[in-house]
Structure formats: C-alpha cells, structure tokens
C-alpha cells in the first residue's frame, strides 16, 4: 500500500484523464496545491467583489421598479430588474461549467477536491433573487485562498463572509441589551442560527461537550456582525451585546465590541481538540470512505493538535499514511463528482453549448442541472447548512442509479463529436487491471453508447 499516481488521481483528485499524467509523489501533489492556482486562471469564476455589483444592481433596479408602482414605465422597469436576476441565474450555471472545466483539465485535482469539500463544509445557500447564486463567488474569494494555511483563517473567512451571514440570518441578530435595539420592535433580538452551526458543524461537532449556554453566549458575541445593503461585511458596534461573553469557559469580548473579539473566539475554536477530532475524521471520511482506518484519522488528529490546525500538514498526514492507499475502492462518488469525472475521461469541451443564451441555458439544464437534481444533488442546493451527506448509501438509490445510467447513455453522445471505442475506454476510465466483467460488458455491448455507459455505471468507476 503505497503512493500510486493513478490512485492519486482517482481517490484524491478528480479522476483519470486521457492526456494528463497523475502526480509522481505526495510531495508533488502538495507542491502543486501550494503553487500558483493555474487552473483558476484558465477557468475564471467571479469573485465576491464582482458579485457585489450584481447585488447593488438588483437593489437599485428593484427599488426603481417598486417606486414606479402603476406608472407607465413600470413594466419596462420590471423587465430591467428581471434581467439582472436572469443574468445572475445564467452566471450560476456558467460557473458550474467552469467548475467542470477545472475538474476536467487540472493537474492539481486535490485542490479541486478540497475546494468542493470546504465549500460543502461552509455551505452557503444565499437568500434573495441574486444572493441565491452566491456560492461560487464566496468559495472563490473566501475559501479557495485559505485552504492550506491554519484552519483558524479558513474558519474566520468561512463564517464571517457576507454569504454565510446572509444565509444564517446573522445580519438580523441584535444583542438583547444593545443600544440599537431600543428603537426596534420589542420582538427583535438574538438569532442563534449562525452560533449553533459554528459549534455543531464548523468546529466542535455535535457530539462535543458544549451546551445551549455556549450557543447563546457565542450568539451574543457574534452580534454586530452583519452585511450592508451592498452585500459588504460590516460590524455594527451598536448592535452588539455589551459586556463580555463566556464560551467553553473562556472569556471573550468586552466594551467596546469589535470584530477582533469574533476572530478571537473562532481562532480558539479552530484548535480545540474536539475540532481536531471532528474535522480530521470528516476529511478522512470524505476521501477514504464511510469507515476510514482509525490509524489515519489518529495521525491527522495528532497533526492538527501539534500544528495548531495547519491544514497542509493535516493533508500530508493523510496522504503519507500507507493505509490511505489501500487499492480497494469503497467511497461512492456523489452525483456531481460522477459527472465531472466522466467528463474528465472524455476530455470533453468544458463549454459545450453554443448559441443564444436562452438555448444554452436550456441545454445546461437538460444535460447537467436536471440530471443532478434527479440524482438527488441539485446544484448548490443542499437541504441545509450541513451540506451533502458523506454516507455512501445516500447515493446508491434506485432512482439515483437509474438516472446516472440514463445520463451516461445520453449526455456523452451530445457532448462529444464521436464516442471512443468502449474497449479502449475501459482502461481510460478505470486504469490498469479493470474488472473482467466490465471489460466483457464493454466488448459485448450492442452500441458504443451502451458500452460507454456500462463502463461509467460500473462500481469500479463509481467508487474511488
């Protein structure tokens, strides 16, 4: 059980590709990860500051439309406002194609897997016609640059970014004794939403010994954190609960309230032993399967504690552990990874659809968004802040599997000028020594399309 370039691509990357050689060592994987972000340059995705222009535009056009009310130009203004929302919707599906492009052509697949992991860990489902498209710009700006340093920095960026503040209603939370509350309706007050998820999901984990009182005190400490009308992060001192708060027996805050107090509690939470345990295990489950080898988790957890949550070191602890390289593939690819790894084998055009924007959008919907939804993973729409399930059985359902097969039969034909020979495709997709049954099926299939689909639907392709 040792490093293997193909397994590195399959298990820790975005899958095998026809013309891309896998990394030659763990060192090279980590060098690429810490080197320049080449693929992001080739397949750019909008940053959050650029996205803010959409927020501002939506606010202004919406205001103009509402003020016009029954005036003659109201329908015209409504159309302008709708166009802003439509542009954001189209941008969101375009960014999905960019993500697919990155995953198809990168030599640094581990980075793409990590950004998917951390984007899910800090799930943001924006609220509002434009904000609901915010997930990729948030990931690009706040998460992607912070994936190899100390977890504290990633945590602060993941928790305090405007997308998260919007999603978990932090901007409405006001300290019960804050000066600003005096002028608000009596029902206004604390919102525990973000505080609870920080402890339960982002740091300690639900089994850790924290109490409702810790949630409440952290919620009080978070008051003041908000967003302004332009979608920018703000700290409103007069919304903050006066005095200090005690979270996990540590005292934070004090007057005057400052953003630094929030950074301070998050920095401590990032290195808490429960966080080390929770996130080492979560990473291992994500990459190695539902029941990762305890020795690997232990090595990661120890590294987390020893390095105060230095993520690159934690990744190295996982990748250099021999038990991370067991040849048996167990982990089931979620729907998006299934689709993206298939496209990578084909080296398909990352922007396959040309024509009028409306037609392009329809085809993206038909070939990607709708199938993802039917497979149970609608793009950027998990049910809650806990993101997508890691358990394999969530993805092996009758309707999900049938939809994967349906996609594997239909979409490659649409995306490619000609399908490869299924017999050659077996090794392209699965690497050397594919199961004999898959080799046989590829040979015995009635058509190229079915042969290709049979390879993609095989557990040998769907597990990594």
């Amino acid at each position, binding site marked *: 059980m040792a490093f293997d370039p193909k397994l590195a691509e399959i298990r820790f990357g975005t899958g095998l590709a026809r013309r891309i050689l896998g990394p030659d060592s763990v060192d090279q994987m980590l060098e690429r990860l810490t080197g320049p972000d080449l693929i992001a340059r080739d397949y750019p995705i909008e940053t959050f500051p650029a996205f803010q222009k959409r927020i501002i535009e939506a606010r202004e056009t919406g205001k103009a439309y509402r003020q016009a009310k029954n005036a003659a130009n109201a329908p015209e203004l409504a159309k302008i406002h709708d166009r802003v929302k439509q542009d954001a919707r189209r941008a969101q599906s375009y960014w999905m194609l960019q993500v697919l492009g990155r995953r198809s052509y990168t030599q640094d697949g581990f980075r793409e897997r990590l950004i998917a992991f951390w984007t899910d860990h800090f799930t943001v489902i924006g609220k509002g016609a434009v904000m609901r498209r915010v997930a990729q710009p948030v990931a690009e700006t706040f998460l992607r640059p912070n994936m190899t340093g100390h977890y504290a920095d990633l945590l602060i960026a993941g928790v305090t970014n405007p997308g998260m503040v919007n999603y978990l209603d932090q901007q409405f939370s006001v300290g019960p004794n804050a000066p600003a509350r005096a002028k608000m309706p009596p029902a206004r007050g604390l919102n525990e939403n973000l505080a609870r998820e920080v402890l339960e999901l982002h740091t300690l984990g639900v089994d850790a010994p924290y109490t409702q009182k810790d949630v409440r005190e952290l919620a009080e400490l978070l008051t003041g954190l908000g967003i302004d009308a332009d979608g920018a992060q703000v700290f409103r001192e007069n919304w903050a609960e006066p005095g200090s708060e005690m979270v996990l027996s540590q005292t934070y805050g004090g007057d005057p309230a400052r953003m630094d107090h929030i950074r301070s509690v998050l920095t401590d939470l990032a290195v808490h032993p429960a966080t080390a345990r929770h996130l080492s295990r979560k990473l291992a489950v994500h990459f190695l399967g539902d029941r990762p080898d305890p020795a690997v988790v232990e090595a990661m957890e120890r590294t987390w504690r020893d390095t105060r949550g230095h993520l690159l070191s934690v990744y190295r602890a996982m990748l250099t552990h021999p038990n991370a390289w067991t040849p048996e593939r167990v982990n089931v690819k979620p729907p998006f990874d299934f689709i993206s790894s298939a496209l990578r084998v084909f080296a398909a055009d990352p922007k396959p659809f040309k024509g009028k924007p409306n037609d392009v959008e329809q085809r993206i919907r038909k070939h990607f968004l709708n199938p993802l939804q039917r497979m149970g993973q609608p793009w950027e729409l998990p049910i809650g802040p806990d993101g997508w399930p890691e358990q394999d059985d969530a993805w092996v359902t*009758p309707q999900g599997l*049938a939809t994967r097969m349906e996609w594997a039969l239909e979409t490659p034909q649409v995306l490619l000028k000609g399908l490869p020979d299924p017999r050659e495709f077996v090794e392209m997709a699965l690497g050397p020594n594919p199961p004999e049954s898959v080799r046989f099926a590829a040979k015995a299939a009635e058509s190229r399309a079915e042969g290709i689909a049979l390879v993609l639907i095989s557990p040998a392709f769907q597990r990594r």
Partner: protein
Amino acid sequence: MTDWTRRKLLTRSLALGCSAAASPLLTPISLAAGPWDNRLVVIILRGAMDGLDVVQPYGDPAYAAARPNLKGGEAGGGLDLDGYFSLHPALEALMPMWRAGELGFAHAVSTPYRDKRSHFDGQDLLEAGTPDLGPATGRDGWLNRMLQTVPGMRPDLAYAIGHENLLILTGQAPVANWSPDVRLKLSPQGRRLAELVMHDDPAFADAFAEAAQQLDSGDGGMMAVPTGTDMDMAGLSKKGTEGIRQVAAFAGEKLLGDTRIASFSIGGWDTHRFQPGALPRALTQLSDALLVLKSTLGDTWGKTAVVAMTEFGRTVRENGTRGTDHGTGGAMLLAGGAIRGGQVARDWPGLSEAALYQRRDLMPTRDVRAYAGWVMRGLFGLDASVLERTVFPGLDLGPRPSLIL
C-alpha cells in the same frame, strides 16, 4: 417473502440473465394483496398555501377590506361554493369533482406549529405529526408510524414519489422510493450487462435490481401520463407542467396495484410577491395532480381519499407587494370517492381584527392532524388510540368531521 429475500432473488435471477418481467416469482400479481382495499394519497404543499385565497370567505364582512388587490368571490372571478366561500378560478377544472361530492375543504385549520412561521420547521412538524419540534423531529414521519402498526408490511404498500426524501414516509417501516421522470431506456442486452458489472457489489446490485423492477412495471409510470391530445379529455390546464402529471399518473398506477398509500409534494406556494401570478401556477399543479389521479384510478377513485396539506396559512391582510406573508390558520383539501365532499367544513372564527391570531392571522380552530387521523380511521379502520398515541402523539381526534364518510 421478506424484502431481503425478494431483492436477493431478483438480483440473482437478473444475474443469471432472465428478465425480471418474465420471472413468475416477481410479477406483482403473485404477491399477497395489501391489508386494506382503500387508498390514501397525501400531498404536501410546500411553501405555505394561502387558504384564504384558495377557498375565499367572501361572505365574511371583513374579507374584502383585508384584500383590496387579491379579490375573492364574484369580484375576483371566484366560483361560488356555498354562498359564503368561493373557489379560486385556477381550480375551475375541479368544479365537477366538487359537484359530485368528491372534493371538499376544511378551513381555519393548522398544525400545532405557532409563532416562528419558518417553512423549514413548519414542514418538519407537518410531516412529523408531533405536537412540537423536539430532538426526535425528523426521525420519522406520521405516515410511516401508521405503517409500523400494520402487520406483514411490504415495501410496495407505500410509495414516496419524487427526488426528495419525504420525511412523512421516512421511518422503520419499509417503503418504496421512485421518481417517474427517470427515462432510462436500456436494450435487454444492455441491461444484462449492467447487471453483470454490478453483480459483485451488493449495494449497487440491489439498487439496480429495484430500478429494473420499477422500469419493468409500467415503464416507471411513463406510459400512463396523459399528454398532448389526451390533455383536453382529462381537463388539464395548458399551463400545467409535465412533472406533476407524471408523478400523479405514477401514483395512480401504483394504487391500482398493490400499493395503498402514496405521497408526494407540490411546491410554489410561498406567494410573498404578486400572488395573482404566483398562486395560479401552484394551483394548476394541484388541479392537474387531482385530475390525473382521478382519471388514472378509474373505479378505484371511489375507494380513494386524497389529503393535501400545507405547513401554515398566510396573513389575512395582503402585504405591500400584492402578496401575503407567513401566517397561521389556513385550508386543507380533501378529494376522492372515499370522502364526503361538496362542503367547506369549518368552525369559522371570523376575520375581524379581534378574531385573528395575534391580530394578523386566521385563527386555527382545528388541527389538520385530526382530519388526517379521521381519514385514516375511515379508510383503514384504525383505532382512535393508535392514532392519538402512535401516529399523532398527543392529538385529541375530537368529533368526526362531516367530511368523513
């Protein structure tokens, strides 16, 4: 035969290369019939349906003033039901059902959920069927708890239909899950080969075997969907969508067989803004679902009860954007031959400001769970104690509603 044995057998027979359809062991007809003959369909209306705009109390003196832009009754084109309530015109295609006594409503109803008016919590409570949200909420749904009381359960007795995991049917009792929009078409050879490549992986082999069986039995519902030329016959709206008709047709097909319970959801009810545009879209889905169910079920419609319920109602007064905000009391819909329709059942609290809940919402005067409980009691002969303790813990069923046969 237990579920496990059936699956294994299916897997094995498929691996041997004989098709599931050809195997006498696997055709539905060889399986025992369900424990009851009546059918229940539960439709979850996600997003909070505005009961006051669907079943419009135009006879209430405070109604018109509360809704200057969302007119009901004659002024808004509403279809008179009983001289006090009118039906939203987008449900016009259901009027024959109403006249036949196969469509009725319960008004001023709600779940026990109060005050926070969150969709997420409200829907959880609606599907959990418990008096309040607690740590156990989300573990199982009330339809599943009902099934747990039935001996000799088989998974195809109840169907959860769609892509989502329906909480209402989640729990220890085995249920079937499928989505009829799966359009997988495989040649017989392709299918045998797919079974071959999955043969050594039990999880994939089992899931594929179940999918194959679904695709065998009625092409996953695809054949039964009235489209195109059939649309006029069924009275379906031209503005309707294919998805919900497929779901309803699939439910109907299953209920014609051994299935006794089906559940699915319809979204689009959260009408904060421009309700005159948004609400008809959702109502068309509901109307189409009922019409397709009825036409698919044929004579079996007479043994069927459909219950459509939502997480809460909406504000009595319209808001500043020609919509309504989250409220409390609302309406639920009952349909089918196994209910006594043609009436709006209610203990009407009135819409004067003093009569409202927190001076803003329709005051609920009965629990939606009592109606659902009485429907199940009527259909399946369940004991009141089972309903009040196991299915809906802590519920007082109260007197039999007039809508129940």
